[in-house]
């Protein structure tokens, strides 16, 4: 079997974002989705530090320290962009106005619980940022992650081992092995890499997976 690369996962997520969608791309892997957005669609990116209509990184030497994204990287503002303060920005999110939020994760449970903010290590300095708000603040939450940990355990689990970010919030999971929907009736495999049988995917994942019809 041939695993999806990070860029392939990002491209797959991007392909699922419709024209006109309002989207927040989380820090890390999800940021990469911006590079794959179809050129024939107009997709409006939100960054929780107060910008709607975020554009790509500026050319070197043209960075503006007051135009940054949630990861504190320099970005640009497109024509049509608007600036607002943090309470308004999170009102936008918490109020359910975003169509899609794309997040990284440590684990996702079979019922869509998300863990992505804290490793649970007792000596770790905790930091949550907008993770909990983002997880609740969109009509659909897409998670992008490796299917398995480095030592081969599934990141899709029956119940979370890591501290919870938000409960029952994930709509769809994109991994290097498969695309899996979280439904009322359980997890449903939408897609898997070539050469990986459904039964093998289910064995690797360790929780029941239905096949999409």
């Amino acid at each position: 079997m041939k695993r999806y690369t990070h860029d392939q996962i990002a491209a797959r997520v991007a392909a699922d974002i419709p024209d006109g969608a309002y989207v927040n791309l989380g820090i890390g892997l999800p940021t990469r989705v911006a590079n794959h957005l179809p050129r024939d669609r107009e997709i409006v990116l939100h960054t929780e530090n107060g910008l709607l209509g975020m554009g790509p990184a500026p050319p070197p030497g043209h960075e503006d320290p007051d135009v940054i994204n949630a990861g504190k990287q320099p970005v640009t503002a497109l024509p049509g962009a608007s600036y607002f303060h943090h309470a308004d920005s999170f009102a936008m999110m918490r109020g359910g106005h975003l169509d899609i939020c794309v997040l990284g994760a440590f684990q996702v449970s079979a019922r869509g619980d998300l863990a992505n903010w804290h490793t649970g290590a007792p000596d770790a300095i905790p930091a949550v940022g907008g993770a909990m708000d983002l997880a609740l603040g969109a009509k659909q939450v897409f998670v992008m992650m490796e299917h398995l940990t480095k030592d081969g355990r599934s990141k899709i689990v029956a119940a979370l081992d890591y501290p919870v970010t938000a409960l029952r919030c994930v709509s769809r999971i994109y991994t290097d092995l498969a695309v899996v929907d979280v439904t009322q009736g359980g997890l449903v495999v939408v897609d898997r890499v070539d050469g990986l049988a459904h039964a093998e995917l289910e064995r690797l994942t360790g929780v029941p997976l239905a096949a999409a019809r």
Partner: protein
Amino acid sequence: MIDKTVPSLEAAVAGIRDGATVMIGGFGTAGMPVELIDALIATGARGLTIVNNNAGNADAGVAALIREKRVRRIVCSFPRQTDSWHFDRAWRAGELELELVPQGNLAERIRAAGAGIGAFYTPTGFGTRLAEGKETRVIDGRDYVLEHPIRADFALVKALRGDRWGNLVYRKTARNFGPIMAMAAECTIAQVDEVVALGDLDPEAIVTPGIFVRRVVAVPPRATQPAGTAAAARAT
């Protein structure tokens, strides 16, 4: 006549005493009022409670305040960063308390203080360790956590332009926490790149009406950007 402009950074931060709660604007270094923070350090005030989104970047601003051991407690959403070494050290040494708040709850709690709201139910954080011990309620089938306002004695914010009434406009994403912190503090102190004549700010575009601001001090931007902006941002 109303004239909220003050002639110096020293005058701007006058009266901030040991043990005060001080909100500091900024998201990372964008909108961080570095010069006001330096002036606060110069006052010698200790045992401060700081409300900021982060807990300092590199060696300036909030980071310097922590390095100088002025902070007893910090309320923030995202302390851990690649360049938060002063916080990391102080926290591991047990020198300061941390109240970690999800970013949207942080913003809404600050706004609630400014808006006279006694408490509010938010969905964010429900079922997580950051809501442990907090009151919860099901409203229309959805789970919520009760959160309370965060007030401050002082707010230090950075804006682009201000006038003698205290009206402020900000610059791009440096707006972030400034407008809500200005509402939530007893005494809001704004550093602005430029003080303009009353009436020069477009009344339709004023972001912080002067009623929320007590003091305005002009701090012209330096020719080179302060440390920890574009370059540091790329690193974090």
